[in-house]
């Protein structure tokens, strides 16, 4: 089945250090790839997307992601983590414009001060 995988249930980093949240995809064709963040008791917030073009995508709150076709990955990165980045992060894909998202299982990011 076509899917995205988030291999880590939890990622722990210290404030000020770079962070990476991993996502790999197993999708045929040219998928749309997304990252969303969910803060406690709040809805999902869109961070960034890759559809086509430049492999490095910049998004909200200083996050970026790199689309790597050879490694079928779309890892989320940030150069310097903040305690306020602590949240649940979801990678997702869709077949195209206007279609529903299919989510990975999520990765909890914990940033310690």
């Amino acid at each position: 089945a076509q899917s995205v995988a988030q291999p880590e249930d939890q990622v722990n980093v210290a404030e000020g250090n770079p962070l990476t949240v991993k996502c790999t995809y197993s999708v045929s064709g040219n998928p749309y790839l997304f990252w969303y963040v969910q803060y406690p008791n709040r809805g999902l917030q869109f961070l960034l997307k890759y559809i086509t073009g430049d492999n490095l995508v910049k998004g909200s709150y200083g996050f970026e992601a790199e689309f790597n076709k050879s490694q079928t990955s779309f890892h989320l990165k940030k150069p310097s983590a903040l305690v306020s980045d602590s949240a649940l992060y979801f990678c997702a894909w869709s077949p195209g414009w206007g279609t529903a998202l299919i989510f990975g299982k999520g990765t909890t990011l914990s940033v310690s001060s």
Partner: protein
Amino acid sequence: SAVISQKPSRDICQRGTSLTIQCQVDSQVTMMFWYRQQPGQSLTLIATANQGSEATYESGFVIDKFPISRPNLTFSTLTVSNLSPEDSSIYLCSVSGGLAGFDEQFFGPGTRLTVL
């Protein structure tokens, strides 16, 4: 972007009853979806709400259990029928294809349902 509201934000219901969740968008959108997020889990697509026609359900979800309406381009409802404790989840509405030009998918704040 789109601003999405859901009512109610949370509810506690008795087994065997039903709950209807409303989703209102502040602008016209082409696509509306309903998702379920069970405790500690990821989001699972329930159905696509089609304006003026029957919703399109994902495998494992049926109309009798999750009837959906979408009377216009800004509003949809999801009913969770014959509730059981296993229906305790967060239900989220999302929208895409804004006629104002956006193509990201935006999510409502969710409705937290607890079934006793």
